[in-house]
């Protein structure tokens, strides 16, 4: 859609989209800092998963 042919819809002033933190800024992956999920709660979550649940998950085909 060319700006010249479409009406400008901006409703300024606007704020920038929130910046996603870069990994080194603390918001992203921290594999190197914390190692494997054994050291946190992720492994606990994974061990609680029912090993058979994928067998039970029978869905209809959708679109």
């Amino acid at each position: 859609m060319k700006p010249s042919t479409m009406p400008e819809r901006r409703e300024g002033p606007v704020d920038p989209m929130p910046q996603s933190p870069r990994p080194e800024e603390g918001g992203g992956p921290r594999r190197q800092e914390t190692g494997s999920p054994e050291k946190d709660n992720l492994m606990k979550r994974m061990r609680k998963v029912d090993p058979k649940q994928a067998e039970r998950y029978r869905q209809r085909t959708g679109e």
Partner: protein
Amino acid sequence: MSWSDRCPTFSVVQPPSLMLNRIFGLETEYGLLIHKDRPDHSPTWFAHQIRDHLFHVQRRGVLDLHHRGHDEPPGNGGFLRNAGRVYLDMGHLEYASPECHSLTDIVASDRAGDRLLQHAIEDLGFSDDVSLIKNNIDHETDATFGSHENYLVSRRFPFSRRGMAPLVAHLVTRQIFTGSGRVGSAGPQDAWIQMDRLIIPRAALNTRAGARLPFQISQRADFIVNDFFEWVQHNRAIVNTRDEPLADPNQYRRIHLLLGDSNMTEYATALKLGTTGLVLQLIEEGHAPQELEIDEPVEALQEISQDQERQWLIQLRSQKTMSALDIQEQLLDAAMRHCKGQDEETDWVLTQWETLLGDLRGDYQKLVGRVDWASKLWLLECFREAERLDWHDPMLKSLDLEYHNLNQTKGLFYGLLEEGRVPRVTTDTLIGLAMDQAPKNTRAYGRSELVKYLLGSWSGIDSDQSADSERLFPPYVINWSIFQVRGRAPFPMPDPFKTYVEDVRTHLQDVIA
């Protein structure tokens, strides 16, 4: 107190910046995981309970009172206060976002759908019985269900095989950062596939049929068997060609894509829509690289997804071999030259796109928290290592599923989020507002006004029990681009960029009078 003071929208809390002249929409089909071996009720029974609770008890919207189609009888679904829709489609709960004019809004609106349905489950006390799964496959039966993207483009968009070659190049290769990943692969699909100018059964290709892959980066790639086609349940295509603009057909076309995976990370959702929006703009403005036409796009889509070495090499029509990363970098380069500086959201997309492609050239673990397939693969590898499992252990399929569980106390994605490994693109506050508020800068705003008015006016109507006369002459009929309230003329809303809000209020005042 003004209306806007009483009814703040998320644009008031955090004004969105807008991607130039683009309307985005997302449709998500959810899976339901029943936790008992011998459950008292079927997934369909739970889906009906959740939908009915949402509309009848929580009053999040108004159910349709008319037949929308042969598979959508009265009461099958309805429009919400936020102007999106919840309905049952092929037995799946499905949520369609309202029309959004910014990535901030579309991400918040998409997550609002997750939360509306998850809250209904919790409100019903079903949390121990059923989990809402935002994925696209069932490992056991090879069923697939979709995440559909919608992009409004000009009617002048070159909707031809040649014109869309750069779009296809993007869609085939973007999975390296938009894929949600899965354990294993689907069996040969009962479908026909185009090879050069021949249409042959896909099973006859005998390429990877029967191969048991440990892991691939996309959930939907195995199920896409055509480059261009109009059907949505069979012979799914890279670009769906159904011409249904849901807007003024003289001005607009809606690019409808069903090849993408449902994303758990907000970051991947935003980049999926943002980069695709920019590639569409490059095509519209005649700046898209023309030398990237892929020789066999369907095959390339699947080969990239299944490439265990992650070399992601594909052959172009020119017989040149390039990697998916190289193609993405060429598209990024074109977008940098022609789109940079046009608005803040575009610049955000360009910066993150560049960063992501750089990181994709390194260890995949750098992408954990931003890219779903990488996050899932890392979790599975850590678990495999700790438990000494091989890739064929059924536990890995169950973990794959659990990554997509929308129950925040159980789901593995939410475990990553809780551990601070996931960057956010929106906030919980914005998502909470988007559950009941429409964006204030699109047609959704006017529709939201209508739904709220109807909720206050026709509280007694039950789609299951309404009289035959109500079914023949329902008090209201709502669609994406038009509505009618009984006794009044139809109210068309052909321009998705227009809010229509004042006109809708005037129209409804007349009804009240």
